[in-house]
Structure formats: structure tokens, C-alpha cells
């Protein structure tokens, strides 16, 4: 029992107690300097009338729900290609994997420079093919797609490695058996690879979406800060500004509980969906 004591104390003090007390803080108005003042559900009412709240929710869904599936698709395609016998495959693996290990702050600054409207590489390349320059991260219509494009650079590598390892785990005998039955490569992919890989895809979809809420904080904070015109103001940035710039601790905590609820619902939905399309070995519902 003593053995888990240090970890358990840490868990209680820094995870469990903050989690529980969040429910209390969410019912107060608290600017840190003074004492918390009990306001009941006022924070949640305020949310219902807060235009920025809705905006940030929709931004989060638009960014995370396009970036994460897109990242996973590209990662899967790359993993399939890198699982083939081609010369220099290890070099390719390194090239595709390394950007994912770039410290996020450094990557953010690099992309901010690449998308610089006046001197950035992106516009230089556009000019080379005779296209007019774009304002990228500074254009309200283009900022969100640009962010998604950046996530494709740094977000694909890890999922790709996970998929590669997953592909290795598929018994070769399944491919041989299906080849004897005359299955084409496309059908093999459809009936062997995809079902065998589905637990991994599923797991990475959940984790990917949940962690994207947090992971894109660094990227967006260091590039657009939620602008222009709040077009990239994702939920986590909104909470951060409320808590640590406006010092509305009660409201920010209430907002973070909504995030918690969203994560719970997402996890639940995905588990339900998973029963329909994820194949687990030894499960004949498949």
C-alpha cells in the first residue's frame, strides 16, 4: 500500500481534488484577488448568452473535426506506402516522422514565417507559379484552413508510426490465404487490412480529437492568438484568455467543465460507433 502512496497522494491532490473543486469554483464569481462569491448557475447562464462562447465551440469543431480525420487519413496512406518494399524506405520514414518531433513553439514560429504575407515562402512559391499572394493566417477566410494545413505537417508522423506498427501486427497468413482465394489488393485492403487495423484507427481517432483540443493551443497561441476576427479562437484559447487574462476564474472553470462534458460525450459516442465498425479479435460480431 505504501508503494502507491506517493503517486496516489499526487493523484488525489493534483487531479482528483482539483477536478471535484472545479464544480464548486464554477458556481462562483472569482477574480483571484478577492474572495469567491457564490453566484449559483450564473456562469452557465452567461455562457448561454455569450456569442464568443458559441463561436469558439464551432471553431474547435471545425478545426479538430477536419484536422484529425485528415491527419489520420494521410498517416494511413503514408503507412501503407512505407510498409512496401521500396528502396530508401527508412529514409522516407525518418523524413515523414521528424516534423512531428519538432517542438511546437518552434514549429509555430517557423510556419508563421513561412506564411508571412510579405516575405514568406508560401507566397514566394505562389509567385513562382504566377499566382497572386495570399494573406494566409491573417485572412479571416483562410486562417482556419491554414491552421489545418500546418497540423498536416507536424501531426501526421506519430500516427503514421503507430499505423506502421499496426500493419506489422497483421499476420501474413491472412494475406496469403486471401491471395489464394483470388482477392485483389484493393479487396485485401478492404477485408483484411482495414478490419485488422480498425482498433488502432479507432483509438487514435478518440485520442487524436481529445488531445487536439489541447495540442492546438500552442500552435494557435503562437501564430494567430485566436484571430483574425476570432476565426481561429478555439475553445481552449477562449478558456485561457478568460482565466489568465480577464481573471474570470469562475466563468473559466464553468467553461472548462463544458469541455469535460464534451470530451465525455465524444468518448461515449465513439465507443458506441466502434461497436459497429471496429473489429476486435475473438469477437464474432464483426
Amino acid at each position, binding site marked *: *500500500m505504501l*508503494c*502507491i502512496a*506517493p*503517486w*496516489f497522494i*499526487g*493523484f488525489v*491532490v*493534483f*487531479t482528483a481534488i*482539483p*477536478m471535484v473543486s472545479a464544480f464548486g*469554483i464554477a458556481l462562483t464569481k*472569482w477574480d*483571484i484577488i478577492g474572495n469567491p462569491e457564490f453566484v449559483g448557475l450564473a456562469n452557465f447562464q452567461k455562457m448561454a448568452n455569450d456569442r464568443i462562447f458559441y463561436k469558439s465551440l464551432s471553431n474547435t469543431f471545425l478545426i479538430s473535426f477536419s484536422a484529425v480525420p485528415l491527419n489520420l487519413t494521410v498517416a494511413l496512406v503514408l503507412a501503407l*506506402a*512505407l510498409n512496401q518494399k*521500396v528502396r530508401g524506405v*527508412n529514409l*522516407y*520514414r525518418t*523524413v*515523414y*516522422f*521528424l*516534423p512531428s*518531433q519538432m*517542438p*511546437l*513553439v*518552434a514549429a509555430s*514560429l517557423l*510556419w*508563421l*514565417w513561412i506564411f508571412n504575407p*510579405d*516575405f514568406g515562402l508560401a507566397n*514566394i512559391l505562389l509567385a513562382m507559379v504566377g499566382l497572386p499572394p495570399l494573406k494566409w493566417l491573417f485572412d479571416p477566410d483562410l486562417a482556419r484552413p491554414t491552421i489545418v494545413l500546418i497540423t498536416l*505537417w507536424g501531426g501526421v508522423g*506519430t*500516427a503514421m508510426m*503507430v499505423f*506502421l*506498427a499496426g500493419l*506489422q501486427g497483421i499476420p501474413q497468413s491472412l494475406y496469403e490465404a486471401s491471395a489464394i482465394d483470388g482477392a485483389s489488393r484493393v479487396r485485401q485492403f478492404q477485408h483484411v487490412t482495414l478490419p485488422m487495423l480498425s*482498433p*488502432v484507427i479507432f*483509438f487514435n481517432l478518440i485520442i487524436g480529437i481529445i488531445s487536439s483540443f*489541447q495540442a492546438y493551443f*500552442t500552435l494557435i*497561441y503562437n501564430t494567430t492568438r485566436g484571430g483574425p476576427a476570432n476565426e481561429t479562437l478555439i475553445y*481552449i484559447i477562449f478558456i*485561457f484568455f478568460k482565466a*489568465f487574462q480577464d481573471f474570470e476564474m469562475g466563468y473559466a472553470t464553468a467553461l*472548462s467543465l463544458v*469541455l*469535460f462534458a464534451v470530451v*465525455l460525450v465524444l*468518448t461515449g459516442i465513439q465507443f458506441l460507433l466502434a461497436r459497429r465498425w471496429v473489429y476486435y479479435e475473438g469477437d464474432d460480431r464483426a
Partner: protein
Amino acid sequence: MTLSDVATPSSLGMPAPLRSRRDRVRSGAIHVFLLLGSVFYIVPFFWMLTTSLKGSGRELTMPPEWIPDPIVWGNYAKALTVVPMLQFAQNTLVITATATVVGVLMSSLAGFAFARLRFPGRDQIFSLCLASLMLPGMVTLIPEFLVFKQLSMIDTFVPLIVPWSLGGSAFAVFLFRQYALTVPLELDEAARVDGAGAFRIWWTIILPLMRPALATATILSVIHHWNDFLRPLVYLHTPAKRTLAIGLALFKSEYLVEWNLMMAAATCMLIPIMILFFVAQRYFVQGIVMSGIKG
């Protein structure tokens, strides 16, 4: 596991000399695809390096100099001094080293206990640990911040070290538990007969056998602290206490925008991670794969 250990299956068991013309066309197509794709992944690195070596103002010339002329290595020295980068690096090292050493030991102890010892509520507590993996960090960050505020520990390293050291990485606990489960139980029993207690068994028997898991957890923790942005941003305010991540971010807002210096600083931040990757590739990749494949 290294990048190359993720082996390549033989193409449907067909021996190489018999590869048909169709197979060769296929492999060529894959090559072209991989080559074109890699442009998107390499060019930003190239752009970062070439910008970091340009003289002041020359990063703004049009058309751009693809290869800087002259090459200004001095940018790196300048980037490290114009902002106190070495101070930031030292802060980052202190936080990373302390939190990693203590955190890895504590979570291996907990993982060992979850795998090997029997105590009431063990499985329930372990499920709580797993459930906390799903918890968005922001939910606990605000109450935690308020606690450290009451303790007047804002603007110290304590909030960045202590929570992680004690309870931070639920994933590491999970990793060690899974690993400890694979160690034969007879070893514990033999030690127990010889009169060793739980701590002795952990320290002298299990810990040395868990070396691969230790390496993986250490690397994951080092990367986490090296890159961590949100928590240092919330907790550290005095410029001299900043970590590299926030130091680099403030490069942009507090100093003249000199993109060549900024890219030099960004390169400096990347280099230690690259070294870690090439030195310990095996555990590096393993950690990433393990955290993504347990579905």
C-alpha cells in the same frame, strides 16, 4: 524498435527475381508518391535553416536567396544572447531533469504496485488512473493554479515539477504496470522468502528488469517537459525564470522581429530533440507506438 525495425513484409511471399513488370511499375509509383510528399515535409526545415544563416535584413530580399550568401553563423551566437536563451535552457533543464527522475521513479513504483501487490481498491484506483488519461488538462489546471496561488508558489518551478513528479503521468503508470506484469512472479516470491519487503523487491529486482520501460518513460517525460508551453506560460512570470518554450515564444513579441535570429533560436531548440531521437531511436519510437496502439 527503430524506424527500420518496423520490418517490411515480403511482397506476398514472392521471391525478388520473379517480380513482374507490374510490380516494378507499382514500386515506381510508390517512389514518386513518397518523393513528392516528402517535399512538403522537408522544405520547411530547409527554409528554417537557410533563413537562420542569412545576414540581418537579407531574409527580406526578393527574390529570396535560396542559399545564403554570405553564410552568417554568427546568428546562432547572437540568437543565444539577444534573449537570455542559455538561462532559459538552464531553467528548462532543471525542471525537466527533476520532474523526469522523480516522476519516472514514482510512476514505476506505482505501476509495480498495481501489477504485483494486493491491496483493497487496487483495481478501482487503477481504473481511475486510466480514466484520468481522458481528462482535459485545462479542467484541473485552473483549480490547481488557485491552490498554488494560495500557497504563494506562482512564479516558482514548484507547480511545474511537483504535480508531474507525484501524480502527473498516468500513462507512465500504465506503461510500468503492463511491463511489470510480464516479469515472472517467481522472482518476487524468491525474494520474499529471503525476507525482502515490497520496496526492496521493486528497487533490486523489478526496476532493473524494467529498463526498456524506464527508457521509454524517461524519453516521453523529457519531450513533454521540453515542449510544454501552457503550464510554464501560466505559472512563470519573471523573465529570468522562463523556460525555452515560452522564451522562444516571447522572442517574437518582445524583441524586434528578426526572422533570421528567430529561426536560429528555433533550430537550437530542435537540436537536443534530434540528438535524443538519433541516439535513442529505439525507445523513442517505442514510446510513441505504445501510446497509440493500445486500443
